[in-house]
């Protein structure tokens, strides 16, 4: 079982936290801090498994993580999960995010935390792996977003300006997986991309999840 999923950046700022067992708020933050402390001091060329986090769970629990550009994706799992399987699952999750947000970057996660949660809900449910087929995940998430949007449009026309105008791109055909596995420059100059980044009004450099685990 997956005990928790934590995403934080290189400075330990949480970007998404999901616990599949209850912890009080202070404890959650403590776990994030401890996990960050454990994970961040490791080199990038060491293995992705870590034992000995004491705050969460028992002796057979492991931290399995991947480090992408500015973000750490950390899954805390017990012995009923395959270590390598979870490593692949993280990759699937990140590639799915990449499809949904088109060249996902840290800012996407910050400004659309709820959306990231909804995507995650289609991948992991109650601490168990639910779906690993990326096209299926993206399609279902999109259908739900469309449903929400149509409802809002009908019932809350006045509020429309407050709704994030971020467009959920549909997935056009099977994209090569290798795209995400290899180092690649994001299509920053594409007009759509420019437009989206502009939304965040951020002056800081735009770290892009280039999909390459390290």
């Amino acid at each position, binding site marked *: 079982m997956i005990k928790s999923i934590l995403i934080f950046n290189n400075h330990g700022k*949480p*970007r*998404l*936290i999901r616990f*599949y067992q*209850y912890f009080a*708020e202070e404890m*959650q*933050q403590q776990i994030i801090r401890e996990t960050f402390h454990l994970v961040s001091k*490791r080199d990038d*060329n*060491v*293995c*992705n*498994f*870590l*034992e*000995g986090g*004491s705050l969460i769970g*028992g*002796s057979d629990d492991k931290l399995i993580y991947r480090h992408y550009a500015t973000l750490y994706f950390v899954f805390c799992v017990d012995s*009923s999960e*395959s*270590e*390598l*399987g979870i*490593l*692949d*699952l993280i990759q*699937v999750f990140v590639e799915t995010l990449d499809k949904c947000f088109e060249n996902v970057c840290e800012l996407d996660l*910050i400004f659309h935390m*709820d959306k990231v949660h*909804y995507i995650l*809900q289609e991948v992991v*449910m*109650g601490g*168990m*792996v*639910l*779906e*690993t*087929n990326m096209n299926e995940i993206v399609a*279902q998430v999109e*259908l*739900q977003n469309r*449903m*929400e949007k149509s*409802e809002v449009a009908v*019932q*809350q026309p006045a*509020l429309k300006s*407050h*709704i*994030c105008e971020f467009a959920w791109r549909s997935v056009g055909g*099977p994209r090569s*997986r290798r795209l995400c596995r290899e180092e690649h420059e994001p299509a920053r100059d594409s007009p759509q991309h420019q437009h989206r980044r502009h*939304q*965040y*009004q*951020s002056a800081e450099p735009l770290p892009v999840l280039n999909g390459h685990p390290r």
Partner: protein
Amino acid sequence: MSTTPHAHIPTHIHPPIYSLTHTHTHTRTHTAMSPSVPLQEMIRAIRSARTQCEERGVIQRECAAIRAQFRQADNGGRSHNLAKLLYVHMLGYPAHFGQMECVRMIASPRYSEKRVGYLGAMMLLDEKQDASLLITNSIKNDLAHSNQYVQSLALCTLACMGSAEMCRDLAPEIDRLLRASNSYIKKKAALCAVHIVRKVHELGELFAPAARSLLSEKNHGVLHGAVVLIIELCERNPETLERFRKTVPDLVQIMKGLVLSGYSPEHDVSGISDPFLQVRILRLLRILGRNNEGASDAMNDLLAQVATNTDSTKTVGNAVLYETVLTVLDIKSESGLRVLAVNILGRFLLNNDRNIRYIAMTSLQKIVGTDHNAVQRHRGTIVDCLKDQDASVKRRSLELSLALVSASNIRSMMKELLLFLSSCPPELRSHAASGIFNAAERYAPSQRWHIDTMLHVLITAGGDVRDETVPNLIQLITNASELHCYTVHKLYRALLTDISQQSLVQVACWCIGEYGDLLLRGDCQETEPVQVTEDDALDALETVLQSHMSSPATRGFALTATMKLSTRITDNVDRIRSIVSIYGSCIDVELQQRAVEYNALFKKYDHMRAAVLERMPVIEKNSPGHTNGEFTGEAIRDIPTAKIKQGELPLLPQQPANQVCDLLDLLGGSEETLQPSPAPGLSINAASTAGGDLLDLLGGLEPALLAPAPTVPVYEKGGVTLTLSCEKQSDTGLTVTLTASNSTDSDISSFTLQAAVPKSVQLHMKAPSGDYLPARGTAKVIQMVVLNNPNKVNLKMRVRISYTRQASAFQDTVQIDSFPGLDAAGH
């Protein structure tokens, strides 16, 4: 609407660059209701805060606005407020005030509100809270909703935070959904069923038929969910496991379909067809084939096929291979297949990817007990991994290396392990040290080698060894009588180089005290001759006594050693006398007491001094997990009788502190011999725990001998068992004995018990019999607790158990509500 004043935020320092500031100025001037800022603007505002304090201010203002809006009736912006609150929650700010809002949103007819409401419930609600009861009905309605996405929200929430009660209520609904036609719902219902079975084990029977029929599904998501559910059912109930053995041919068929089918774009991951499903099925096969010939036979061919045909150049392929290997090694597979599996692990071990090496060692660890020789073949590679720079790989490699030590390779392995110890990460050091001690004890080729090895460990990692190392090593040294001279010289030299490693210093002091005459004679053949004068030896001891690095226990060792030297040297007895008298006014009570006693030995009882300070006799070797704490009748009877006999002073010679205690009785007046005066602080420092035991044993002597109280288990988790027995002492008094044991294969150290009782009850914890639980229950830890319950309230006790195993710390709490043998006596 109320807004928090935020005068402390220096807004003037930087111009308001974000619109939120405007909005808020606005809100403050017009206290009328205004819609709060959108989620993204709030995030922007939080992000542009330059200090922690500023961020706190922004969030406080936002939270106040959100709170105010929650109180309003439906205003259409509710879903945004909750989303904002969840963001704030992620940053670690309190968000519990949103709980009721989640409940309200879930009941909303709008999908957008339900969606964020359910998300909020999963993040903010605890299944134990009342608010979670309120959503049961909404979940029930939504499970029957016509829209699959609404159903899915309810399923997801139930699987995440459904309490046992909720699960009982809703299980029939889930069973119905398992038979639905919609595969999107079915896969979620299957995982929901897993959660329900985890919460209420007996509901497993309900889902078994549906789970069985799900195996004929084509959709991989549903199949995956079904396999997860079947794994859960089989692990909970052996009968169900027996029944599901019949599904092995189906599972094999599904696996064959995956392995043999050509490229299917939908499920392909790096050239492997749905590795996630494959891994899950292989796990189920492992459970079904374990200890069962028939089922194992049925899957043999398939496993051979997967093991030979899977592409191992990518992580995904290795994930499948890894799972296959584990299954082959766990079931009753053919010997040829086992060889193949171990060879795959051997290949993994040579892989460049550290992840693969790590899992190779994790798997080899699992079979090192059964296929020892097969693992032994990879020893070289495993030992090489000790030098890896990755702490995780190091940890695995250490575990495995320790398991591979045998009588034939002890010398070469120990060289590697000692090298590792000198450079290993601090969190592994104590585990490595105790592993080395165990290995040395089991396979030491000679006593000298054993002593050398232990000294080496103390020199490199003296601060990280367990407390009982000192008495164990002292015992070892005592027994090797022909090596006394060699050892004392070696230790003397070690002491001159470094006095910071407490355990090393303690052993060195003890030896110098005990074998000072051999040290001074200096005609030891084994080492190069060094002339040590009486003053040199005393200087060394005095340095230890005066060093600020020395712990109180270490000073005790040094003082006793100094005293012992008084009968082993000839010229400098006066110097010893003055050292001893100086410490007669020492601020440390324990040390002072010893010094005063030794002083008395010089003055009043000088005629006895030589006899009292004689060398310790060679003692019988007792079991590795030294049995001082054993609560047997013999032990209890032995101790008092032994104490009366004057000649047999050093009863537990590995505990010099103990000897002091005995000594003291002897001098303090023979009529009190049976009542050792409890030296203050004696039970606190670790080196003298045996002294504490002694007192404890005597203190608990009477009740234990009168009537054996009924013993009931109160805690059992992770191989640690705690049993309780109580004894009524008076109308209000009560003695509770807690006995802990460890049935796992690894040793437990720093074992402590803490207890809490209701306020009106007085609690007194006696000293525990130890803090070390060796593997496989070879020794126990006993903790006596004396309770006084003057108001006769309903007695409850909460016990916190904490210990360290394999270098990681554990903690758990157990509540004890009933005390056996008491209820009859008026509760």
